[in-house]
């Protein structure tokens, strides 16, 4: 029904634009990762040293392992918080369902920085939580271990990604045909058994999608460590950031970026394969 000219006219501008402003920049990053820097000059000497450094330098390995630990903790906690919330909304919220759903969705899109800052004011040694604990005489001096720790990073990122994880889980719970759940119960399965044998397996695609998002986005986060992590909370993206800044080793920074990118894309491809139905919504 649409003419060739029409198709060409709508396809060409976005294709050209994303080729120029996305494909080219990402490719440049890829190319840089095989180059080298000497005395402040980037030389086009093709090599794999940057990638080897990432796995050989003990400092990088240590930060990489910590990053994976933090991202995994965030993922597990977000699922543990997001799943019951989604289950409650989908099965038991009744007429308040729509309103509650909206209450989860709105913070999802609201300022990352503002929410991170809120945690900084809560966890600091002169912060709100310390004030609260002393007010209740639970502690007598300020506890300084709360802020500037991997714990603070995990807390802040869990706060940010719980609504992200909630969303696909809720969607997959909503897609479960209710007669299936009723049939299981009518045939005498306990609520527990119904959950573990019917509901949970059917919601796994959503759970997987949510978990992947939380893991991947935490893996590449550099702002939470700067905001609430301190030196002991440094993550892999912070190394990238300093390599592109003061340390001035763009090729090495590019190699680490490409490494993050490859992990991200492989994980997403893997989940997609499991999930199978990649739709645009």
């Amino acid at each position, binding site marked *: *029904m*649409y003419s060739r000219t029409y198709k060409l006219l709508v*396809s060409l*501008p*976005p*294709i050209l*634009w*994303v080729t120029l*402003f*996305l*494909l*080219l920049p*990402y490719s*440049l*990053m890829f190319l840089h990762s095989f180059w080298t820097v000497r005395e402040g000059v980037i030389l086009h000497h093709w090599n794999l040293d940057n990638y080897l450094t990432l796995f050989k330098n003990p400092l990088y390995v240590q930060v990489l392992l910590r990053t994976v630990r933090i991202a995994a903790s965030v993922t597990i906690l977000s699922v543990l*918080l*997001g799943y*019951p919330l989604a*289950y*409650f909304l989908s*099965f*038991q919220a009744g007429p308040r369902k729509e309103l509650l759903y*909206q*209450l*989860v*969705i*709105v*913070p999802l*899109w*609201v300022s990352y*920085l*503002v929410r991170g800052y*809120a*945690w900084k004011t*809560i966890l*600091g040694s*002169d*912060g*709100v939580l*310390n*004030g609260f604990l*002393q007010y209740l005489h639970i502690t007598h001096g300020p506890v300084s271990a709360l802020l500037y720790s991997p714990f603070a990073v995990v807390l802040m990122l869990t706060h940010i990604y719980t*609504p992200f994880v909630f969303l696909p889980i809720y969607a997959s719970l909503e897609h479960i045909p209710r007669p299936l759940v*009723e049939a299981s*119960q*009518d045939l005498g399965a306990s609520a527990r058994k*119904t959950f573990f044998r019917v509901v949970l397996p059917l919601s796994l695609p959503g759970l997987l999608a949510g978990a992947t998002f939380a893991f991947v*986005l935490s893996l*590449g*986060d550099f*702002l939470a460590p700067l905001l609430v992590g301190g030196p002991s909370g440094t993550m892999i*993206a912070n190394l*990238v950031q300093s390599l592109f800044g003061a340390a001035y080793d763009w090729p090495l920074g*590019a190699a680490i*970026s490409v490494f*993050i*990118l490859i992990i*991200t894309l492989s994980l997403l491809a893997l989940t997609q394969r499991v999930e199978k139905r990649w739709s*645009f*919504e």
Partner: protein
Amino acid sequence: MSAATKQTRSAPLLAACATLVFAFIYLPIVVLVVYSFNRDGVGGFPPRHFTFDWYRQLFADSAIWDSVVNSLIVAAGAVALSLTLGLFAALALDRANFPGKSFFRRLVLLPLILPGIITGLSLLLFAVRISLDLSLITIFLGHGTALISVATTELFAGLQKMDRRQEEASLDLGATPWRTFWLVTLPNLKLSLIAAALLIFTLSMDEIAVTFFLYGREYTLPLEIWGRLRRGITPEINAISTLILVVSIILITVWYHLRTRSEHQ
């Protein structure tokens, strides 16, 4: 009937869990807002002495408002750019078949799923390569390009729900494809377009991960806040954060309602 009783039996525990998660999501936000009215500053408990002083200080702080103006300029530009290209991209994905179509779709969506640092640094490398000085323009290009992903997703959903027969009728009755586009396609997409614009505007106003690598001498609002955080926290930041929250929540709520309305049409 047995199903209903079994479901309600486990409800109290589950409801308690859900309440706790809601508290976890909202408590930090509430604390932030409450302390923006606390005379004695951020921290300490309980907050005492209600005051508007921090807001007064905020309204007199010209550096903040300069950065707000910069953010508004960038966001307006980003909305225009990403909405135009996103509309074309959604039409292309909906209606045209071309080699590499699925690659194109993945590429467009990439900034949405990749950590901001990768998109930001890639764009930085690109800007350096073509000798483009960092300024509000590079931030605008970064936001505009990264947010094509959001525009495309939203508008593609709108197109999928659209009634094709109206366009067919228009073309059959002799209207040119151009006229059909302006008089049938666009008006049908109105709600999706407004909704997408609101979401993109909010995201651009809040963006920091990509912006972090693309700024020159002029700051956007999140960058200005970031810069101040290095010098320590003040209730004035709570005040501006509260305003950001209020505006974002309003815009996102309107977006949400427009989106649900367009779904039920």
